[in-house]
């Protein structure tokens, strides 16, 4: 009986097709690793999809408000900043009412900050898995970014409502949202890779994250327009890649002309940072199971 059952299993298992040969060596720091890493990642594309969907499911499974949480955070921040910067003190916003102005920037900012807050702990909070099973580890932080991207889409519904209410219409400029979002995703991924890898050895990174993000937000044109930054500080200010991203996201959404200068800085920095951060992450990944 047992024999025939084993035979059945044997028959069911296919044994054809070419085999891939994998060579495991001590870690190096080379372009070849970058290529090998990307190949490995593409083989696990399905895991990224399943894990990102899992993030969303888990988040809303036991909460009463469920998916509404994606909207509540940027909406609440928008109301607070409107009170502070538009009712108590007046910040000049070119052309649009303050709530629309603030919310248009809080959309990308919330994406960035939620992604980083969650992704920084991405490796550490999955220590159980990381020490037991192999899969490209970058999937863990990246899955939080994909989930945040879905949240961004949901939160955009409110943006539509606000624009209707204040009679701000969408222009063909809005097509720029796509490339700007792409740059933002690339930059967020770089930061997430670096911080989540560092967090494995130095847990201070996670502790510092809320403070860093708070400061970072005020160093980006979220609650005030880029034009308000004094001219003599402008060059240093523009070194923050989030400046070009937030400013141009808002410009594209509200139909204002893009700020090409700041956007190109963001593009160049993201393009340099992304491969470097990936190589750094892969290097840490090799021994992450030993130290986590």
């Amino acid at each position, binding site marked *: 009986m047992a024999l025939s059952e084993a035979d059945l*299993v044997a028959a069911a298992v296919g044994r054809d097709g070419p*085999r891939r040969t994998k060579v495991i060596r001590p870690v190096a720091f080379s372009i070849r690793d970058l290529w090998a890493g990307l190949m490995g990642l593409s083989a696990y594309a399905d895991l990224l999809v399943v894990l990102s969907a899992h993030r969303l499911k888990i988040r809303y499974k036991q909460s009463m408000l469920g998916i509404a949480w994606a909207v509540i955070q940027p909406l609440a921040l928008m109301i607070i900043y409107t009170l502070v910067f538009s009712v108590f003190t007046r910040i000049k916003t070119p052309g649009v009412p303050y709530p629309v102005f603030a919310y248009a920037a809080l959309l990308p900012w919330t994406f960035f900050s939620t992604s980083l807050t969650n992704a920084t702990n991405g490796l550490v909070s999955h220590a159980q898995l990381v020490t037991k099973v192999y899969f490209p580890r970058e999937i863990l932080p990246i899955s939080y970014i994909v989930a945040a991207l879905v949240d961004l889409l949901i939160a955009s519904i409110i943006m539509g409502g606000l624009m209707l209410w204040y009679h701000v219409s969408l222009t063909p400029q809005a097509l720029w949202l796509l490339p700007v979002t792409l740059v933002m995703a690339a930059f967020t991924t770089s930061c997430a890779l670096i911080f989540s890898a560092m967090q494995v050895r130095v847990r201070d990174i996670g502790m510092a994250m809320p403070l860093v993000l708070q400061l970072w937000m005020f160093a980006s044109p979220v609650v005030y327009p880029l034009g308000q930054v004094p001219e003599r500080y402008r060059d240093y200010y523009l070194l923050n890649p989030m400046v070009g991203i937030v400013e141009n996201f808002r410009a594209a959404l509200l139909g204002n002309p893009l700020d090409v200068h700041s956007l190109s800085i963001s593009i160049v920095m993201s393009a340099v940072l992304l491969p470097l951060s990936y190589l750094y992450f892969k290097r840490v990944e090799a021994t992450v199971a030993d130290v986590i």
Partner: protein
Amino acid sequence: MPSDLTFDNVSKRYIVRHEVDDDATKHPWIRKLNALRKRRDEFWALRDVSFAVERGETVGIIGHNGAGKSTILKLLANITAPTTGEIVINGRLSALIEVGSGFHPELTGRENIFLNGAILGMGRREIADKLESIAEFAGVKAFLDVPVKRFSSGMYVRLGFSIASHLDPDILLLDEVLAVGDAAFQEKCLTRIEGLRRAGTTIVFISHDLAAVERICDRVILMRRGEVAATGKPREIISLYQQQIEPSRINTMKTAMEDDRAVIESLAFYTPSGLRPSVFHTADPLVARIDYVANQEIRDAVFEVFVRTGDLTEVCQLTTETSGNPINLPVGRGTLEFHCDEISLQPGMYHANVCVKERLASEAINWQYHAATLRVDPGRITRGQFYQSNRWKLQRQAHTATPPQSGTGEAERQPSTRRPSLTPTP
């Protein structure tokens, strides 16, 4: 035959960090500062290990805890990178290490199958195709839409194994997976592994379950202190392993505290019927027999047996010190037997030290290190550090008369979704 797996002079070094001694008289800030300079020590888990596994071969890797078995597995599974050397893997490799570690309690069985399958490297379509078969094999078909937090531990483990065993890899890594589940499920697992083996899957099996190793492996590698100690036929290597006495640090200090008033000649493990098997099973009865010679009369003697794992962790002690009447030994030979109703030890290889001393004496009269080896194979299977012998009793408050039910040993828990039908006893 081509090699599916090659280890070429592979070494793995771990850095162990020690806290610098904490001196309470110093200022807290100074101590904080000192704590930053941790001492770093190197530890080589593997040293120049080379071996190859042919296509379709089933190789077992055995050895004491800390001999490097798990490190080999982690390197093969790509969980950690080697310090030096090269590993070549030919084909799709899947590891079956501590199944179920990727489950999320809030998600349903179905969702967890997709999540876990993806983590193990299956595509979504592949999982969808195998969903039926996975649930069937694990026996959780009726609970696919129940969150796994409501699963019994048995169901949890079965589902984990079932997913992993549906991977159809070219090379399969197995680690202690058979130490879980009930006997029937274990049999099912072994059958499945046998089937994969017959289909030509290359298998690397790392286990303390020597009986299973002997049953499924073509070849066994014995590891000792990070090096390959021996390779060969399962039967030969396993018996070599059983005879192998781990030389220990303590051995060297043995003569200092001995006198010849009494000597322990041997320690051996028997069944109550007087047989001396090479293998015991968890929950088997056991008799530990000590043969001694007393050269002088000894008043209030105490006999003790210490059971240790391969890495010298003490797991239990048998002693006459805390029970029964005082023992007075007249001059001459004698035997002392400890009778244990059920072995609580989990499967593994254990060593026993034995000593005789006078009550309250700080030094023993005679110590015998590694006087005997005790091999425990899976008997009554439970999870946890040891087997807790128990009896159980179920009382139902129903209108129709049902006879009370009882049993001994582990009772398979029903999923808690069904639990309302049982009323707890007051």
